[in-house]
C-alpha cells in the first residue's frame, strides 16, 4: 500500500508541475516563429522606420509641399539637387516644389491606400466567402459564379473607368479598389469554410439551435483568422502597387494630392534632364515599403501555416 500511495504522490506532483507549464496558444507559437525569422523582423523594423518618417518627418520640413521655391525654378537641374543648406533635403521637383515634403505626402497616401484597401477586401471577402461556403447549395453556386465573372474582368480598366467617369478623388479610388480586391479573398475563405463547416464544434452549435449568421461570426470566422491575416498582409503591397500603377499613368489622385506612383512617373519623365534624384528618392521609399511588406507577409505565412510545423 505504501508504494502505491508513493506512486500516487509522484503522479500528483507531476500533475502539479504540468499545470505550471503554460500552454502555448497558436498565436504565441506563431509569434515565436515569426520573431525567429530574421528577414521578417528586419522588414518590420524597416516598415516602422518608414511609418515613423511619415509621422515625424513633417516637423523637420523647411518647405511645405505646395510652396514653389522661385530661386531654383527653371534651373532645377543645376540648383535643385538635394542639399541641407537650401532646406530641400531631397531636392526639388520639376516645378520647384520641395521633394522632401512631397515624398512624405506621397508615402502617406500609398500607405493609407494599402491599409484601407486591405481592410475593405478582408471585411467583404471574409463575410461573403464564409456565407457562401457555410450556406452552400444553390446560394453558394450563384455567389461563386458571380465572383468567377468578376475575376475574369481586367480590373485595372474598371478602376480607371470609374475614376475617369466620376471623379479622380481618394473616395473613388477606394471604391474602385474595394470593388475588385475582395474577390480572391472570398474564394479562399469559402474553400476554408467548406472544410470547417462539418467539424464537430459547428455541429454542436447547430444542435444548440444557434442561428447560421451567429455560427459564422462566432465559430467559423475566428478559425479563419490565421489565413485571413496572411492574405491581408499580402494584399497591402498589392493595393499599393495598383494605386501606384494608376497614378503612374496620370489617372490617379489629382494635384495637389500625390502618391508614390505619381512621383515615380514625374521622375521617370525627367531623367534625361539629369534630375535623377526625382526618380530615385520616391523609388527608394516605394521599394523599401513594398519589399518589407512582402517579407512580412511571407514571414506571417511561414509562422501561421500549419503545414510547416
Amino acid at each position, binding site marked *: 500500500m505504501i508504494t502505491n500511495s508513493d506512486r500516487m504522490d509522484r503522479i500528483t506532483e507531476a500533475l502539479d508541475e504540468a499545470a505550471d507549464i503554460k500552454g502555448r496558444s497558436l498565436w504565441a507559437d506563431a509569434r515565436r516563429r515569426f520573431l525567429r525569422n530574421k528577414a521578417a523582423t528586419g522588414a518590420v523594423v524597416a516598415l516602422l522606420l518608414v511609418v515613423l518618417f511619415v509621422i515625424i518627418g513633417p516637423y523637420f520640413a523647411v518647405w511645405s509641399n505646395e510652396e514653389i521655391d522661385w530661386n531654383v525654378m527653371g534651373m532645377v537641374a543645376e540648383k535643385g539637387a538635394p542639399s541641407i543648406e537650401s532646406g530641400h533635403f531631397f531636392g526639388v521637383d520639376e516645378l520647384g516644389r520641395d521633394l522632401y515634403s512631397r515624398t512624405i505626402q506621397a508615402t502617406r497616401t500609398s500607405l493609407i491606400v494599402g491599409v484601407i484597401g486591405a481592410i475593405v477586401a478582408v471585411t467583404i471577402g471574409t463575410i461573403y466567402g464564409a456565407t457562401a461556403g457555410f450556406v452552400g447549395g444553390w446560394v453558394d453556386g450563384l455567389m461563386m459564379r458571380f465572383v468567377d465573372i468578376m475575376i475574369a474582368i481586367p480590373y485595372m480598366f474598371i478602376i480607371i473607368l470609374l475614376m475617369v*467617369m466620376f471623379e479622380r478623388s481618394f473616395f473613388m479610388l477606394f471604391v474602385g479598389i474595394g470593388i475588385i480586391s475582395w474577390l480572391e479573398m472570398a474564394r479562399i475563405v469559402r474553400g476554408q469554410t467548406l472544410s470547417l463547416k462539418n467539424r464537430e464544434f459547428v455541429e454542436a452549435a447547430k444542435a444548440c439551435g444557434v442561428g447560421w449568421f451567429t455560427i459564422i461570426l462566432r465559430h467559423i470566422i475566428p478559425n479563419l483568422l490565421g489565413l485571413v491575416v496572411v492574405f491581408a498582409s499580402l494584399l497591402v503591397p498589392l493595393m499599393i502597387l495598383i494605386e501606384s500603377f494608376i497614378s503612374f499613368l496620370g489617372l490617379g489622385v489629382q494635384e495637389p494630392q500625390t502618391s508614390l506612383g505619381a512621383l515615380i512617373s514625374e521622375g521617370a519623365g525627367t*531623367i534625361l534632364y539629369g534630375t535623377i534624384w526625382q526618380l530615385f528618392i520616391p523609388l527608394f521609399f516605394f521599394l523599401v515599403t513594398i519589399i518589407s511588406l*512582402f517579407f512580412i507577409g511571407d514571414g506571417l505565412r511561414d509562422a501561421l501555416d500549419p503545414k510547416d510545423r
Partner: protein
Amino acid sequence: MLNYILRRLLTAIPTLLVLVIICFLMMHAAPGGPFTSERPLPPEVLANIEAKYGLDKPLYAQLWDYLVGVVTRFDFGPSFIYKDRSVNDIIAQGFPVTLTYGTISFVLATIVGVAMGVFAALRHNTWVDYLAVGATFSAQALPNFVMAPILVIIFTWQLGWLPGGGWNGGQWQYVVMPVIALSTSYMASIARIQRTAMLEVLHSNFVRTARAKGLPSSTIIWRHAMKPALMPVVSYLGPSFVAMITGSVVIDLYFSTGGVGLHYVNAALNRDYAVMLGVTILYGALTILFNLVADIVYAWLDPKIRY
C-alpha cells in the same frame, strides 16, 4: 473532354455579356456626356450630334444597337473625339504592336520562369537555389513602371545601346526593353511558384517509388515530376496574362510604342468613352478567352478533374 470545353464556352459567353453591359451602363451613368463642354452647344446642334451618334434613343435601344454591332460586326462604333476615325481603326492600328511584344513577353516569362523554378528546385539549398530565390523575391517588387525608367537609365542614358522609345516597325532594338520591363516581375512570380511546386512533387511518394525502381533522374523529372509540378503554374497563367495586358498600358505609354495602351490613356484623359469601352471589351474578351484555354490545359494536366 469536348463536353467540358463546350460547358466552359457556355459560361464564357454570359461573362462577356455582363462585362459589356456593366461597362456600357457605367459609361452612361457618368455625369457629363462626351459633348458637354465649357461653352455649351446650341440645343439644336447638340440634338443633331446626339442623333448622329444615336444618343437620342432610349438607353436599352442604345445598348441593343451597341451589342448587335459588337457581336455581329466587331464594330465598336465611332470615336467621340477623333471625328475621322472609328474605335476599330484605333484598335487595328495599335493592337498588332501590343500583341507582338505582349506575346514575346508572355512566352519568355513562362519559359524562363519555369526553367528557373525547376533548376532551383533540383539544386535545393545550394547557392544556386539561394541566388534564384533572392533574385525572384526582389524582382517581384519591380513592377513594369519601375523597370521601364531603370532600363532607360541604364541602356539608353548610360550605355547608349538601345533607343529609349518608339517602335520602328518592330525592329529588335525597339522590342528589347518593352519585353524586359513587362516580363520581369511575372517571370519572378512564375519561378517562385514553379520552385515550390517542384519541391513538393520531388518529396512525394510516387517520386520516391520511381527512384526506388532505379529510374534515371532525367526520366523521373520529365515523365513523372514535370506534369504535376506544372499545374500551379498553369493556374497562375490566367492571372499573369491579365496583369500583362494591364501592364502593357504602361509600356505603351512610357516607350511610345504606338500600341493600344497609349490610345487608351489618351481616351481616358479626353473622356473619349467610346474608345475606353472598346479597349476594355477587347481586353476583357482576350482575358476570358485565355482563361478558357488555361482551364482546358489544366483539365488535361490534372487527372483528378473529370469532365
